[in-house]
């Protein structure tokens, strides 16, 4: 089992979710985060004082799936979240030790 963590542009979230649904992934967790890699931030002005903002809004998607599914998930995300500009984001793949369904108590691969 693996967890795919993808940090992507917030306005690509909708499209990416739909693409994941098309490859059979319907369970996920999404959070609003802030971050940056090499993308430059922006400047805000409040009554003449300047504030440099380097942490930019991003969307974080977490999907847990069987190892065999990882490639098609990654491809779906990359294809739909990409714009070609800096700030498109990153995807990380992590190992998952166990997974439990709260409603039934099922564990392991069945509970993903």
């Amino acid at each position, binding site marked *: 089992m693996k967890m795919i963590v993808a940090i992507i542009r917030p306005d690509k979230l909708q499209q990416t979710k739909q693409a994941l649904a098309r490859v059979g992934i319907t369970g996920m967790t999404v959070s609003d985060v802030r971050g940056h890699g090499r993308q430059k931030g922006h400047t*805000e*002005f*409040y*009554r*003449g*004082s*300047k*504030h440099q*903002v380097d942490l930019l809004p991003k969307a974080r998607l977490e999907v847990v799936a069987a190892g065999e599914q990882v490639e098609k998930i990654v491809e779906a995300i990359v294809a739909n979240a990409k714009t070609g500009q800096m700030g498109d984001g990153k995807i990380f793949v992590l190992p998952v030790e166990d997974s439990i369904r709260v409603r039934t108590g099922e564990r392991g691969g069945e509970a993903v």
Partner: protein
Amino acid sequence: MNSINPGDTAFVLLSAGLVMLMTPGLALFYGGMVRAKNVLGTIMHSFFILGMVSVLWVLFGYSLAFGPDVGGFIGRLDWLGLRGVGQTANADYAASIPHLAFMIFQAMFAVITPALITGAFAERMKFSGFVLFTGLWSLLVYSPVAHWVWGTGGWIRQLGAMDFAGGTVVHINAGVAALAAALVVGRRKGFGSDTLVPHNLPLTVLGAAMLWFGWFGFNAGSALAASGLAASAFVVTNLAAATAAVSWAAAEWIHRGKPTTLGAVSGCVAGLVAITPASGFVAPLPAIIIGILAGTLCYGGVLAKWRLGYDDSLDVVGIHAVGGALGAILTGIFASRAINPAGMNGIVFGGAAQVLGVQLVAVIATIIYSFVVSFILLKLVQATVGLRVSEEEEETGLDLTQHSEVGYAI
């Protein structure tokens, strides 16, 4: 009852309502500019003042401000608890409306003035210290200055200074007290280094809109009659607000490359502040000049804060002290007896230099008295109840630490 004019009475009562609305408007204007963890604490300052000062005014404040004169300095307590203030008119102040109507109109001014100061100590004031300071300030600073400028026998009134709706009594008074507060309370943790940014500017814009709307009551209502003068004050009020909003935005556009929403609403408030003393004395075209000067100079005043290093969190000094002084001085320049025969002609209309001189005396006297007494009161509260929250409380935020509440439960 013969002298009571229904039109005038209706107008003044409604104007009192409009001015009342300015205090919750101020609460939102300030509230949107602080960080989310302090939004309720900031709003609470204004709202609590609306409660506390409304009562103090009726019990003591009104009599101290407008009661029979003692030495040109203060009113006697003859009207304690509104004794003698009834439904008939008081010809000294407003001959065609019930005395109670005049009193309640003035009450709303007494309320909003200390509320203005709260912007200077936003995000770090201890609530109990704030209550004690504000209550004392209302009686020991607001009422005396109001007496000098508007009370019968008041020494500044006797000099002939022109302050139609409170450039000195309200704006310089609050603005200078704000400076004293910023200095005594001290800077916020993280001032100058951290990003202390507004959390909800739409709320600030809503507040500014309520202020602009309410200011029609503040200025036009000060005619104390449903008259041509009220119409004139209404018009110049709108013009100054509008011009100043555009001017501040333009100044920012040139200086920083972008006009901001916060700049536009700050400009509008600066214009409203500056036109306040002048509103019943100047014509529309001078009001445009007043607006342009207020929008640009107050923008500069706000920038000066950074150079001078004091933490006036919400720019009360830059807008109210600077704007109020500017307005009072420009009144001495642009006032015209053609607009208001009860006033004098300003320099531009052939007035003597003395006219401007008297305006300056009013400005300087207010600055000195307000600063000194406010400073003393702040030190007094600091030494007894305490003025400032602890560092940890400041970090957690006023909403939770002072009020056990959270502004946004999302």
